[in-house]
Structure formats: C-alpha cells, structure tokens
C-alpha cells in the first residue's frame, strides 16, 4: 500500500460534468483494487498553461490523492494515456500533505519524526553504510 498523488490537466473546453464523469471513470479503475481509496480530490480549475500543449493555452487542473497497491498503477496510467481529453497527467508518491491550490502555504509542518521517511521502501532496512 502506497500513498500517491495524481495531477490531471484536462482540456479547458470540457464542461464540469464531463470532467467529473472522466474523473469518476478513472478513479473507478483504481478503486477496483483491494482496499484502494481516494483520500482527496482538489479542483484547481481553469488555469493558463506556462506553454501551449497541443495548441491549448489553458487547462483544467485536478489534483487527487489516493492509496493503492503499486500493481494497480500501470493499468490506471494506461487508461489515462488513452483519454484524449486529458492533456497531461502526473502520478507521484504522495508527500503526505493535502493538495493545496497553487498559492502559498503559511503553516510549516512542525512535528514529524526524523529524516528521510517517504523516500523509499522503509522495510528494506539498509543501514546507509556508515554510522550517523
């Protein structure tokens, strides 16, 4: 089980129903897995792209976080690639914070346990060579 974050950029010409319908369809694929779960969905809405993608100057951004087994991802991403209304998508390991709109965060995460946590599989227990 891993926490992931996915960013979708839809064509901005889509209506909100069409976007919801597509999101539902993609997420349904994910939820088919054992105890996969969508933990957060954040709509950034229409935003100007920093450079045109396939002659589109705007895109509709949606950020979602989910928990899933890694084996579910290839199929999920394959479906995303086939969606011709989706300009871009990015799936990354989640950094554990809620997806905030692209403005600024004022609160820093204060309490946390040490060091390099979300960097990789924690169960491998490599000693990092030398002593700390």
């Amino acid at each position, binding site marked *: 089980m891993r926490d992931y974050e996915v960013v979708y950029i839809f064509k901005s010409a889509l209506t909100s129903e069409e976007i919801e319908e597509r999101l539902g369809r993609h997420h349904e694929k994910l939820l088919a897995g054992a105890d996969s779960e969508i933990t957060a969905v954040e709509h950034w809405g229409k935003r100007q792209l*920093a450079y045109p993608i396939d002659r589109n100057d705007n895109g509709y951004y949606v950020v979602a976080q989910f928990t899933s087994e890694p084996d579910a991802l290839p199929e999920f991403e394959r479906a995303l690639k086939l969606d011709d209304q989706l300009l871009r998508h*990015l799936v990354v390991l989640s*950094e*554990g914070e809620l997806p905030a709109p*692209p403005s600024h965060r004022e609160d820093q995460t204060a309490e946390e346990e040490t060091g390099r946590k979300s960097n990789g599989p924690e169960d491998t227990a490599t000693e990092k060579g030398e002593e700390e």
Partner: protein
Amino acid sequence: MAYRKICRFCERSIRRIDYKDEPALGRFLTDRGKILPRRATGTCARHQRQLGTAIKRARYLALIPYIQGHHS
C-alpha cells in the same frame, strides 16, 4: 540574487519541496527559467536535489515554463 548562507528550506524546516507551489519555485529560477545554482541561492545540497525534481515536475505540468519568453 544576493548571496545567502542559510538554506531557505532548512530555515522554514520544509521536509519535501512541493512541485505544485509554483510561486515559491520561481525564486530559484533565472529570468529565463533556468535553475539557479546553489552558490547563487544558498540552498543546501539535500534541498537543491529536491528542488531540481520539483522544478522539473512543475515544468512538465506547465506550471512554469521550460524556457521563459519562448514563443514558437
């Protein structure tokens, strides 16, 4: 950019640099959109590595341009 001894991320005890936080990333780019070196920004090694990844992700998502001021 003025020389700074203190890493801006360590200063605010940021653990993971967010690729979605486009305004914050802009400070570490030249006016052409290139990544500024550590010696110019004072970022520590660990955060500079994270920053590189974050900037590249943000570029892919068209949050920041690959090349500023380029119009094909």
